[in-house]
């Protein structure tokens, strides 16, 4: 016989250390079981889409940095690809290779944050987070060499990147390429077959591929359900056709496979970086001002470009009316849309699973609210 207790509603957030920003959930519990979840957004809404309407095309790059602030390079890349498509700019090859190196390093950094904080949310205070933050720090230092900024990079420009990489960057990159596999092994030794992580994440918050596709969920969460869908392979942009890499896929669709998939994706990203370093050749990093002026005036029209961000499909929809600023700029934010099934994933699980699931989805409030 089961005993029914009285449901109790708790507000989690917006000020809560485990919500990765200012996210609020109104959760109803029956005992320790979750029976209802209502996500409430908007605490970090800055109106980026409206702000873009009175900035020039190049100035909007700084707005993209501040969306998903743990993967700014990827945001830069997606936005710049949209501008290039709209304006019909041919990028310089060296600029594109640098762009790919930067965004793959950023993907590694973003996955490190995701893994570190997922384990932190599990209750492993400090150690795994420090391990992953140590590696991320190396990447951020390389970004500082590239463009002078660690988080809000604004590194990319229509036609390439704004500055060539200094020799110091290549030295750091080659030692990073040598050392990083060992660092991932170390992290995996600590976590991948850890008994506590098994019992807390396996079989929790399972999604089926049909559910995920129907709810437009993309990125590592979709691939953890067994669908090999990665825009770098399925709809290649930049020079992803020229590099060789695999798409890791798991079919359990639970929190553990999401964790494991991110670890494997970091190794694949490193593989891409290695090939980019081999392919890159000296040359200009962006077209001369004669071809691509600072003040862009794209022809009238619209375009939608989607890239594989660290959290899923990151899409940029741009409408131009022929003036110097976008008429409309819309961001298809993967963080927001990946939360669509939050309720379905959480209902029926226990209170302790809530933040594990939340960490497994890996959202960034800057991108959810924009």
């Amino acid at each position: 016989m089961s005993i029914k207790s009285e449901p109790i509603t708790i507000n989690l957030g917006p000020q809560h250390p485990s919500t990765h920003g200012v996210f609020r959930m109104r959760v109803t519990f029956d005992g320790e079981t979750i029976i209802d979840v209502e996500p409430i957004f908007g605490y970090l809404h800055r109106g980026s889409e409206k702000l873009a309407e009175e900035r020039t095309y190049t100035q909007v790059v700084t707005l993209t940095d501040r969306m998903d602030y743990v993967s700014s390079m990827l945001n830069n890349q997606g936005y710049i690809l949209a501008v290039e498509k709209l304006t019909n700019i041919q990028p310089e090859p060296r600029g594109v290779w640098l762009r790919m190196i930067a965004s793959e390093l950023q993907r590694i950094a973003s996955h490190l944050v995701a893994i570190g904080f997922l384990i932190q949310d599990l209750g492993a205070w400090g150690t795994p987070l420090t391990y992953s933050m140590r590696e991320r720090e190396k990447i951020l230092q390389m970004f500082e060499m590239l463009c002078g900024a660690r988080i809000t990079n604004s590194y990319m420009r229509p036609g390439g990147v704004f500055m060539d990489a200094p020799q110091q960057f290549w030295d750091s990159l080659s030692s990073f390429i040598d050392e990083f596999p060992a660092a991932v092994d170390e992290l995996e030794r600590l976590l991948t077959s850890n008994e506590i992580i098994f019992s807390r994440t396996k079989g929790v918050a399972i999604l089926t591929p049909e559910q995920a596709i129907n709810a437009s969920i993309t990125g590592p969460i979709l691939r953890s359900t067994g669908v090999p869908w990665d825009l770098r392979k399925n709809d290649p942009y930049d020079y992803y056709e020229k590099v060789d890499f695999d798409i890791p896929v798991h079919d359990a669709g639970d929190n553990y496979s999401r964790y494991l998939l991110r670890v494997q994706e970091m190794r694949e990203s490193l593989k891409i970086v290695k090939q980019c370093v081999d392919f890159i050749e000296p040359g200009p990093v962006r077209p001369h001002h004669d071809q691509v002026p600072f003040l862009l005036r794209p022809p009238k029209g619209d375009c939608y470009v989607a890239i594989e961000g660290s959290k899923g499909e990151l899409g940029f929809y741009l409408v131009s009316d022929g003036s110097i600023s976008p008429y409309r700029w819309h961001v298809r934010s993967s963080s927001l849309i990946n939360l669509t099934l939050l309720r379905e994933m959480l209902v029926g699980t226990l209170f302790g699973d809530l933040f594990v699931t939340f960490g497994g989805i890996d959202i960034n409030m800057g991108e959810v609210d924009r």
Partner: protein
Amino acid sequence: MNEWNGKILADEINTHIPNSVVSSDKDSVNVEKEKIYEVLKFLKETSGFSFDLLSSVTAVDYIDHFEVVYHLKSLITLSKATIKTKLGFGREDQPEIDSVYSLWKGADFQEREIFDLMGIYFTNHPNLKRILLWDGFPGHPLRKDFVTNSQSIIPSEDLS
């Protein structure tokens, strides 16, 4: 991934759902607002199209009308297409359109966002309320007639 040519796609849609296409160009198909649900249901459920992933929904304010833009992708036929529809001519205060929530759950937050920021009402959406702004916020900020009191970086005479 192949991108559907708008003109070919428009012919296909028009043969199965008569009088649904308004116009088409090489990138997109513009369909009648009343037929939008029917057209998208057809594109989702007919084999050969099988657009099972609703990539993005967004809306644009063109001053004399609004436009809702659907970006569809298919994981089965590895193709993508863009469907647009015009609504709210003559600055209608509450432009309405059918929600596609029952076809793709992924439309849930995106349609709420359009409602919140652009003020387009999605009929048959189960939970149509503001998502980013708070209840009682005056107006819809992404509309072009929304008055902001910001100081623009670019002088307004340079914007045209």
